[in-house]
């Protein structure tokens, strides 16, 4: 009798408590219209000029708007600018801004703010965007008209001045860049109400955002994702309702009833070679590496089959993807061994050091694949890897890009003589410069643009400095209470997204 009473009391106490700890992923009731986003790309910097055009731009896009954004085809569409127009020579473009917009600190969104943003990106000491704006000579501000003067004909500018490269901060707040870095002030869909550096940021909907009527989320809690293995549990129990996940966690997320989806993107991993240094100054060694790479192994082991093998920095079907260049260097270990022998290397004689910033199974796959053709690779983790990599001091390394909105920017970054991702600078493949100039000269709506762009990709892929391997998926999991996101490639766009219980 006493035992039964005790059990009943315990059950009465524990059941509600345990229920509160658990929760249903699909239950939107508890979260209302609060997006709870766990991100493994939590920005270290909130000044867009310092943060640069890497993957973190997606998080910064909560706060900042830009002149243009991209649609589901990856084409530039109006954001803060309602329209733009080139002059007849193609060396000047005028952006007309929407009227009556303000930053969250009350400052007006006008051409002066655009001019300040461009100048800051070009001149600020710690700017990560300097190399992206080389075509821009100056900006004149005339009320709502920002006139951008170019130093060459370049029809890529609307594509370039989007979320990746020119998120626009309030010029008043940007007068103190160090403060802006942890107190972001923009004209984007949300306003920061609390920011704990490196950990968490809380935002509320910005009623002054130009497209506020299509933003149906009232509040965002963006958290730095904990260990990858715990993210799915967090989603399942309602701690988060949206997160990027590792491919190894996808099955668990699906089993938990979460929506798992791949957002289209431009992710591409590569093996970077420095052909200015031995042994890659010998074309036969470069070709031996090209033929030693089994791309499918990367896809199977690192993405659990959810990624794609690639030998280009673009996904298949994208305008810039060149079908003619597909599989130019197929996996052929026998040919690879033969080329090495011709270069004078017997099995095991060629020893390379692969320098990477952190432990990475990708490096171990490269090591194992090259071992099969007789190249002995030592993996070296260098925490200061970025310095020698971008100074082009390394001989052999790995890099993975999340792409750019301007396909031409992707090409010049990888294959251009000063491209940050070209480990063999100042080398560039023959014909690339002319092909790039042709792309710049071709308007985006010209019927010949795709052909010209693909020709530039083809010229770039002649580069001996890069061996593309695979494309990792932009894998996300969300609570079913969150509606589907627009499929803008590489972007996370919250326009029109709803949470159960909100509008």
């Amino acid at each position, binding site marked *: 009798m006493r035992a039964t009473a005790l059990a009943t009391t315990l059950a009465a106490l524990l059941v509600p408590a345990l229920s509160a700890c658990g929760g249903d992923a699909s239950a939107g009731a508890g979260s209302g219209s609060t997006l709870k986003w766990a991100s493994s790309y939590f920005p270290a910097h909130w000044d867009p000029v310092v943060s640069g055009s890497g993957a973190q731009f997606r998080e910064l896009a909560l706060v900042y708007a830009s002149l243009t954004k991209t649609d589901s085809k990856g084409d530039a569409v109006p954001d803060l600018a309602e329209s733009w127009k080139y002059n007849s020579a193609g060396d000047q473009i005028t952006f007309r801004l929407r009227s009556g917009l303000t930053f969250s600190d009350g400052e007006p969104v006008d051409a002066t703010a655009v001019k300040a943003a461009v100048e800051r990106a070009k001149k600020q000491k710690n700017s990560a965007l300097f190399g992206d704006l080389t075509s821009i000579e100056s900006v004149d501000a005339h009320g709502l008209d920002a006139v951008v003067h170019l130093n060459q004909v370049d029809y890529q500018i609307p594509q370039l001045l989007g979320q990746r490269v020119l998120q626009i901060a309030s010029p008043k707040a940007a007068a103190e860049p160090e403060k802006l870095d942890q107190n972001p002030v923009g004209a984007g869909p949300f306003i920061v109400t609390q920011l704990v550096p490196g950990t968490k940021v809380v935002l509320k909907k910005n009623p002054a955002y130009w497209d506020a009527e299509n933003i149906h989320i009232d509040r965002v809690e963006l958290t730095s994702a904990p260990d*990858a*293995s715990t993210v799915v549990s967090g989603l399942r129990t309602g701690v988060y309702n949206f997160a990027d996940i590792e491919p*190894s966690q996808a099955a668990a997320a699906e089993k938990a009833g979460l929506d798992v989806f791949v957002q289209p993107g431009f992710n591409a991993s590569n093996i970077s070679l420095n052909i200015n240094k031995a042994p890659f100054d010998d074309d036969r060694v470069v070709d031996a590496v090209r033929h030693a790479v089994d791309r499918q192994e990367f896809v199977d*082991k690192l993405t659990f089959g959810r990624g794609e093998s690639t030998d280009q920095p673009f996904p298949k079907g994208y305008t810039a993807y060149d079908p003619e260049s597909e599989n130019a260097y197929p996996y052929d270990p026998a040919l690879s061994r033969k080329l090495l022998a011709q270069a004078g290397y017997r099995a095991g004689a060629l020893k390379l050091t692969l320098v990477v910033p952190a*432990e990475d199974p990708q490096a*171990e*796959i490269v090591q194992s694949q090259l071992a099969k053709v007789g190249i002995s690779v030592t993996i070296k*983790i260098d*925490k200061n890897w970025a310095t020698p990599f971008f100074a082009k001091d390394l001989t052999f390394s790995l890099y993975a890009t999340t792409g750019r909105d301007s396909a031409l920017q992707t090409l010049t970054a990888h294959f251009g003589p000063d491209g940050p991702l070209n480990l063999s600078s100042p080398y560039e493949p023959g014909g690339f410069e002319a092909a790039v100039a042709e792309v710049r000269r071709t308007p985006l709506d010209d019927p010949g643009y795709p052909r010209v762009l693909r020709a530039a990709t083809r010229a770039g892929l002649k580069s001996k400095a890069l061996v593309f391997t695979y494309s990792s998926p932009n894998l996300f999991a969300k609570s079913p209470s969150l509606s589907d996101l627009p499929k803008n490639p590489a972007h996370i766009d919250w326009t029109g997204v709803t949470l159960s219980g909100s509008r």
Partner: protein
Amino acid sequence: MVRVVLSLTTGRIAAGILGLIALLALLGPWLAPQNPLTTSDDTLAAVSGAHWLGTDHLGRDVLSRLLDGSRVSVLGSLEVALTAMAVGVLPGILSVQLGRVFEWITLRLADTLVALPFLLFAVAVIALLGNGITQAMLVTGVLVSPLFYRVARAATLAVARSPYVEAAVVAGASTGWIVRRHVWAKVLPPIAVALAQTIGVGFVIVSSLTFLGIGVQPPAPTWGGLLASDLGYLDQRPWAPLAPALLITLTVWASNLLADAIRDASGEAGRALAGRRRARARRTAEADPVPSGGTR
């Protein structure tokens, strides 16, 4: 002392486990049934006859990697413990013998070292000198050395005030002679306890660093590294982290058990135990004389 430690059940268990771990460290790479670095298409495979502990995310045999990785963990923890002992013991003894200036300086140094977080410091040293477990463990050993400093100093202080040491000082004995003749024997047992404990601490440090991917160049296997990579694939192999976690836990537990056994053996109880054993041995010898010219 060794015999007394081994006469205790805890001592025997600890010695057995640590002996086995030492054997793994010595022979592990040869005992590994497969090449621990060879990848295969058979990724995240379950336990089978071919792979007793399954395979990892790159298709490598987990048992072979565990066996091969034991050497790094054992050598790393020994390096921490021996460095800490080498750096801490002598200053600890001399801080009592060499006067107030030396005492003040070494005490402040010890306080400073205690205040430094050794894990962060090890990471910083690796960033400075390159990714290697040797330099990380040497630095960690120095940071752990205040433990030995304090133990040696406390034991020396107890001896220094004893009448026979004071008599030796009055008789004109040198500091070196006093340390060798009187202090050393008293200091050794607590140091042995500290050493066993520090080996356990060393295991935790090595495992923590390698868990974070620090100190070892991939694809070299380590227990901590295996644990870390297994945690990323819990959905596919939920039992996988058990093997490296158990090995780490068992080794640390055995080190602490050994420390307890040494402490028990070197204290009053230990001396009494040793006395009883000697007495029993004497009684046995007196009761059962072996006749000359043959055996029964």
